[in-house]
Every structure is written in structure tokens, then in C-alpha cells.
């Protein structure tokens, strides 16, 4: 049986500086490697694996850069290539390590209880693995960078100091705090005493409740999630901050503060990702290879008409949706097809029925339009909300797709239509009124419909889907960011960890993507394609989140290689606008879908985001549990997995 392994923390670019008395002949020898915290057989281990035995010290010049600073913009070319070189070697190492993982991490030096330093093998001479219950204390020192000295309870063995030239010591300590209580040593403020799990955690919880510090309690009360077992990490963080005092807080750098504040705005991120109560543990699931996906030609007018019966009903709606999902629509068909996709026309309606529906909807529209058209100046003067909506609509209409022929130039009738529909929507839903971003959602619909009434009702349908994004509390945005983060964590833990280490784990930089469904990211014609594909509601619920994952997957290498921090990630993502290729993205997103779909041991949170729980179940004989029944091809590689008890760790398995 494969050993179970969960990676809780992983960071490359951690250095050792062995001194000559540690057996190194070279004074300047540096060992670069990766540091991990893993859970294995219910034990929490800290392990270090070197990249290679030594590293050219000149690389250190760049390794010393603060990853989250913005200063790299002015970096010289020479430095850049140097750092890239360093990263490349690390990446190849990462690949190798992944391979090791795939065979269940079968390393002799990781046998149970093993904690002594491993000097046996030449390549892993500097590797070590230590159980955190054997840690006595951690000394935190600064020398232009942070380095940590781990002291063992057994004083006969020692571990070389870990130098965090590329940052990450804080994240490492934060991760440790999930499993151990780190308290400042009264005699030595640079030293953190390590006390072991469960007991320490519940103690810290009691401490918190006893704590009269208003800030703590206040923060605690405001975040009910903290009261659950799973968020002990958070609780211990508060305790830790309180123990450290204000000194630390004053040193906090702005991006970190910004991130903290955003974290409060978008709460529940950590908690949501938990599968089981207890420790918050990140699981690494091997999803297998991502299938290659091909796209199809757009649905033509001929093809569309073949799906209609003589009275105009759409036959075989499911097949048609599937076709639209795979190829989209040719532009000439959009005006008709979008009305069905958006639910303005029922698929089963006849031509006659649609005509009378349209008539009724036309009357209703103009009745609402007259409501704002007939408001006198006097009335408007006394209606500040209407006035605000109106003023903002006027401003935004003049700033929406003005290079599109339908809206360009002065006095273009398209502008008047855009304005009138948005004003009428205010009357239709006065509570929501107008929120910035809505003009972006209407513009493509109006462009396709070229008809005020049809565009309005199609917009109403689209807004039904998007409404929550624009509400006062922006709940829709928060939910989506959390869901996206959950998905990304499953798909790409290393990248997710990287983003988290750059204070970007809540994915704020995807805000614009989600608020207006990529309207500003893609060229106009690609927006039309993406939207019609999404409106098919195939292949799963929240497919647009997989579209996000697909884009991020393409950008991750750049982001990690360049070691982008909070600000640069935001900037980089913002600047992707108009540079994306929709067909590639859709291919990749569908590939990701297939990859997840065929994964046999999906966490419940993932299946529920993608609607696998509620979707029509594929008939299958296996799995009688509450989890969704998976397609049979999950086992197609011949590695059907044994069913583990639900609470067990999900390990890494071969693909």
C-alpha cells in the first residue's frame, strides 16, 4: 500500500551555509534546496532536500531580493537572466521531486520515527527530516534576510540554519503554527519555543478566550469561522501577534496590510477549503494527465434550422447546446440563438408563441421606459438615487466600447439605446439600479440584438445570473473568489502556495474577470464566443471558474519565474487584457474539466462547486457512497484506486 503524504508547506530557494567544520572544504559553499512541511502517517515532518551540493555564490546576489517588493521593475538585464537561471535549475529539480512523489515518496530516510540527519547518500548529504514533536525551539534571525535555527530536544543532533534568501520564513512559521504552538521565549525574544500539537492548540484557544485584549476579541467575534476547530491556525496567529507586540506590526509592509484587509473583505477563504473538521490540511491529489481537447466549427444557420420543427420548436436541445459549447455560433445566428440560450425564448416554444411573447414583452418594456422618461425635473431633484444612477449611466455609456462601430462617434444611436436600456433596467430593479460594470454586460447583447426590447430582456436574463456580483455586499464576488481559490488549490497546489506566499491567495487580481465575465479581457468578438459557450451551461456548473484556472495555468510560469509579488501579480493580470486567445483558453478549460471529472477521489467542495453532485449521474456500478458517481474512464489507466475511508488522507498516487 502506498504511503500517504500530505504536503502542507513547500518552498524552494532555502539555503544552507555550511561552515568548514561541518565537513565542507569550501568557505563559500552554499546549499540550495526545498523546505517542506508534510504530514505522513499522522506525523508532521519538516524536511529539507538540497537542490544540489553547492551553488555558485554569485547567484546569491539575486536570491537575496525581496520577492514581494516592486523594485524589480528597475532591474538590469544581467540580474534578470541570473535569477532566471537560478529558477530554471530549481524547476528542473521540482520536476524530479514530483516524480519521486508519484512513486509514493519511497525514500528510505523517511521511515517512521526517523529524525536524524541523513548523511548517507552524497546527493542528499544535506537533506534532513525532523518530526515537529522533536523540535524544541526555533530561533529567528535577520541578516539582511531571515534565517531560522531549529533546535532539537535531543541536543546531541543539530540541524544547519535555514536561510530564506527568497523570503518565505514567515509562511513557513505560519504553516508550522497549524500544528504547534510557537511562543516567544521570555529570555530570548528571537527564540520561539515549540510545543506540540493538539494540546497546545486547545490551550491557545483558551488563552484567546481569556485574553482581554479588545482587538483580539473584537477580531475574533467578527469572524465566527475562527470558532470552529479548523481555524486553530488562525487563532494561534492572533496569539502569536499579540505575543510579538506592536513592534512587529509597525514593520508590516503595505502590500501585506492591503492583503490582510482584503482578506477581511473576502472572509471564509480558509475555512471553505476544509474537507474535514480538525486540522486544515492541504491535500495533493494527482489529477492525471490533462486530455487534449479540440474545438469545433461554429454552428451555422443551416445547422441551426435543422434543429427546428415546422412550427419553430427546437428539437434535441441538448445536442444543440453541446454543439454550441464545442463551437459557438456563427455571428448571423447569434441574434436568434442567444434568446434561447439566455432563456428569453423557451426552447419548446413555437414561432407563434414567440411572436405573442415578444409583443407582451414589448409592451412591458415601454411601460417601464415611460416611467423614467416621464419623470419631471422637479421629481428628479427630489430623487437623489435616480439622479445618481442617471449621472453614472450617462458617464459610463460614454466610456463603453467606444471603438466598436455600434457605439463609436458622437450621437451614435447605439449610445442612446445603451443609455435607455440601462435606465429602464433601473426601473425594472430599482434596488440594484445601476452599478459600474453593467454597461459592459449590456453592450455585447445590444450589439448582437440590434433591438432595444430584445436586448433589454436578454440583458435581464444575463443579469439574473450576474446579479449577486453587483449587490451591496458583493456576495457573488466573494463566493466566486472563494470557489476559484478552492479549485486552484486542487489543480495546482504549488502555484496556489506561491500566490498565498505573496499574499494573493484570495485571488483579488481576478476581480475584473469575474465581475463582468472577462468582458474587458478579451477582444469583442471573443467575448461573444465565450459568453455563448458559457450560456450553454455545459459541461458543468461554474465553467467560467475553470476558464479562470485555464488562464492562470498559462500565466503561472511567468508569475513564479519572475517571482512576482502582490503588486506585480495584480499588474500582470490586469495587463493580460486583449492579449488572450479564446479558443486556446476554452480548450484548456475543457481539458481541466475532463481532468477533474475523471478524478476519482474529489473533495466534496470541488464537486459541489462544479455541480457534480446535482448533475445527471453517469450510470456506473462502482461507488455507493454519497460522492458523485464518476465516469468509468477514471480507471482507464488501469490504476483503479482502492476506496479509502472518507476521513483518511488522500495521498499522492501514480498517474
Amino acid at each position, binding site marked *: 500500500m502506498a504511503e500517504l503524504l500530505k504536503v502542507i508547506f513547500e518552498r524552494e530557494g532555502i539555503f544552507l551555509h555550511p561552515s568548514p567544520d561541518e565537513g565542507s572544504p569550501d568557505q563559500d559553499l552554499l546549499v540550495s534546496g526545498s523546505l517542506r512541511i508534510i504530514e505522513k502517517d499522522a506525523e508532521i515532518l519538516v524536511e529539507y532536500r538540497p537542490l544540489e551540493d553547492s551553488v555558485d555564490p554569485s547567484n546569491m546576489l539575486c536570491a537575496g531580493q525581496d520577492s514581494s*517588493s516592486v*523594485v524589480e521593475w*528597475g532591474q538590469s538585464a544581467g540580474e534578470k537572466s541570473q535569477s532566471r537561471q537560478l529558477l530554471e535549475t530549481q524547476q528542473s529539480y521540482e520536476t524530479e521531486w514530483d516524480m519521486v512523489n508519484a512513486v509514493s515518496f519511497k525514500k528510505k530516510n523517511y521511515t517512521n520515527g526517523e529524525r536524524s540527519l541523513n548523511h548517507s547518500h552524497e546527493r542528499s548529504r544535506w537533506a534532513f527530516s525532523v518530526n515537529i514533536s522533536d523540535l524544541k525551539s526555533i530561533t529567528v534571525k535577520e541578516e539582511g534576510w531571515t534565517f531560522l535555527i531549529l533546535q532539537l530536544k535531543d541536543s546531541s543532533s543539530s540541524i544547519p540554519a535555514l536561510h530564506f534568501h527568497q523570503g518565505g520564513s514567515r509562511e513557513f512559521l505560519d504553516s508550522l503554527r497549524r500544528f504547534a504552538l510557537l511562543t516567544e521565549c521570555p529570555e530570548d525574544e528571537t527564540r520561539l519555543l515549540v510545543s506540540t500539537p493538539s494540546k497546545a492548540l486547545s490551550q491557545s484557544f483558551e488563552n484567546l478566550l481569556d485574553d482581554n485584549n479588545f482587538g483580539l476579541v473584537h477580531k475574533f467575534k467578527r469572524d465566527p469561522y475562527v470558532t470552529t476547530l479548523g481555524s486553530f491556525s488562525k487563532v494561534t496567529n492572533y496569539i502569536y501577534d499579540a505575543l510579538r507586540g506592536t513592534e512587529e506590526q509597525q514593520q*508590516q509592509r503595505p502590500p501585506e496590510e492591503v492583503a490582510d484587509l482584503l482578506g477581511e473583505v473576502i472572509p471564509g477563504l480558509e475555512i471553505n477549503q476544509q474537507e474535514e473538521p480538525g486540522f486544515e490540511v492541504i491535500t495533493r491529489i494527482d489529477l492525471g494527465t490533462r486530455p487534449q481537447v479540440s474545438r469545433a466549427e461554429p454552428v451555422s444557420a443551416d445547422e441551426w434550422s435543422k434543429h427546428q420543427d415546422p412550427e419553430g420548436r427546437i428539437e434535441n436541445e441538448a445536442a444543440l447546446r453541446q454543439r454550441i459549447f464545442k463551437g459557438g455560433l456563427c455571428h448571423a445566428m447569434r441574434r436568434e440563438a442567444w434568446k434561447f440560450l439566455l432563456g428569453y425564448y423557451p426552447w419548446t416554444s413555437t414561432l407563434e408563441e414567440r411572436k405573442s411573447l415578444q409583443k407582451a414583452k414589448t409592451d412591458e418594456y415601454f411601460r417601464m421606459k415611460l416611467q423614467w422618461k416621464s419623470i419631471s425635473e422637479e421629481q428628479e431633484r427630489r430623487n437623489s438615487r435616480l439622479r445618481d444612477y442617471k449621472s453614472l449611466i450617462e458617464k459610463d455609456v460614454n466610456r463603453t466600447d*467606444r471603438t466598436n462601430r455600434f457605439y463609436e462617434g458622437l450621437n451614435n444611436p447605439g449610445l442612446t439605446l445603451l443609455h435607455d436600456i440601462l435606465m429602464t433596467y433601473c426601473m425594472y430593479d430599482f434596488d440594484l439600479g445601476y452599478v459600474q460594470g453593467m454597461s459592459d454586460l449590456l453592450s455585447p447583447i445590444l450589439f448582437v440584438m440590434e433591438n432595444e426590447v430584445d436586448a433589454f430582456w436578454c440583458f435581464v436574463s444575463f443579469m439574473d445570473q450576474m446579479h449577486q456580483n453587483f449587490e*451591496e455586499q458583493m456576495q457573488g464576488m466573494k463566493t466566486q473568489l472563494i470557489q476559484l481559490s478552492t479549485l486552484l488549490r486542487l489543480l495546482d497546489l504549488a502555484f496556489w502556495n506561491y500566490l498565498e506566499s505573496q499574499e494573493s491567495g484570495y485571488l483579488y487580481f481576478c476581480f475584473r474577470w469575474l465581475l463582468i465575465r472577462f468582458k474587458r479581457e478579451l477582444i469583442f468578438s471573443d467575448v461573444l464566443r465565450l459568453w455563448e459557450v458559457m450560456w450553454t451551461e455545459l459541461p458543468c456548473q461554474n465553467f467560467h471558474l475553470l476558464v479562470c484556472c485555464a488562464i492562470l495555468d498559462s500565466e503561472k510560469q511567468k508569475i513564479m519565474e519572475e517571482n512576482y509579488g502582490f503588486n506585480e501579480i*495584480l499588474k500582470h493580470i490586469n495587463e493580460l487584457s486583449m492579449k488572450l486567445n479564446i479558443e486556446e483558453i476554452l480548450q484548456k478549460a475543457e481539458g481541466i474539466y475532463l481532468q477533474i471529472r475523471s478524478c476519482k477521489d474529489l473533495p466534496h467542495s470541488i464537486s459541489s462547486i462544479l455541480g457534480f453532485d446535482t448533475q445527471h449521474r453517469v450510470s456506473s456500478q462502482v461507488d455507493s457512497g454519497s460522492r458523485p458517481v464518476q465516469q468509468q474512464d477514471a480507471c482507464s489507466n488501469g490504476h483503479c484506486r482502492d476506496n479509502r475511508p472518507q476521513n483518511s488522507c488522500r495521498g499522492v498516487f501514480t498517474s
Partner: protein
Amino acid sequence: MTARKSLLKVILLGDGGVGKSSIMNRYVTNKFDAHLFHTIGVEFLNKTLEVDGNQVTLQIWDTAGQERFRSLRTPFYRGSDCCLLTFSVDDNQSFLNLSNWKKEFIYYADVKEPENFPFVVLGNKVDVTERQVSTEEAQMWCQENGDYPYFETSAKDATNVAVAFEEAVHRALAADDKADHLIPTDTVKLHRKPRSATSCCS
């Protein structure tokens, strides 16, 4: 190590449609796009300039002005070195809202001494002929609210935009202890201080 670097964070605040993005783009790229979209979320651009022989990187933050987006806008106020309060001279409401923007900034940026914080006020769109706010009114407001420098700008024809930003830089540098921004970089803690450049350049 001859050149010293420093990073200043400047934030543009004001009602939707007063021209915040246009001002930023004019200053950084010296271009004006009459068809620019309204901003969704937050964006920023960098511009490097030389002040008193020192390289200063200006990081200019631009935000969405609508009330609804407040909660996702305000976190970015933290760490600002200067705030550009912006209104449009053809929109009286945007002028009346300056006080609200100032309050919101001080509150969320967690400014320690609001009376000493460098604000600069911009009355944009002076190219427009139908003004609703006079120069005198605007100057009066600036005087009464903390003696802020006031610039009448036009992002469209580039009037006063660079001057306003340069003033912002000087105010920001003067307000903070200079040493805070221009520390010799080799003494900077790499792990915690993103404000200053690292000294890895030979």
C-alpha cells in the same frame, strides 16, 4: 552603488468620471484616449523620475469611483505616500464630494497624522468650456481644508498634469522623514521592506 532608489505610492481618488484614469495615463504614457473604459477594480502604473539626483519610482494607483466598490477599493489605500483628490470642474457634485473622499482616505489609509498628510487637489477637465466650479471656489476649499496645493488640469490637452504629480512627489518626500525613503539600500531588511530597492546591482 551610486544611484539610490525609492518608491512612492500615490493614489488617485474622486467621483466616477472625473478623469482619474486619464490623468494617470497622460502622466505615465503621455497619451489621451477619449474612449477609455471606466475602471473596474484597481489598477496601477509605475513611473520612474529623478528628484534631487535620486531615482524615485512613482506607483500610481487608480480605483473605481462608485460607492458600491468601496470595500474592495479601500484596502489599497494603505501605505499611500500622497493622495490626489480629484474632481471635474464641469461637475459640481464631484467637487462637493471631495470632503467625503478625503474622509474615506484618512479613515481607511489609517493615516497617523491627518493634518500633516500630503493631499494634492486636482480640478480636471479645464478644457471643457462649461464650468460648474470656479477656480476661486476650489482654491478656497483647498485653503480651508489644510492648505493643499491646487492644480487645474486637463488630461486631454496635458495641462498641468506633470506639474501636479511632481508637486505630489515633493510633498510626499517632504512629509515623511526623508531618511525613511532614501535609506542606503544595503541596510534595508530584505524580508520586510518593499519600499526600497535592494542593493544587488553591482
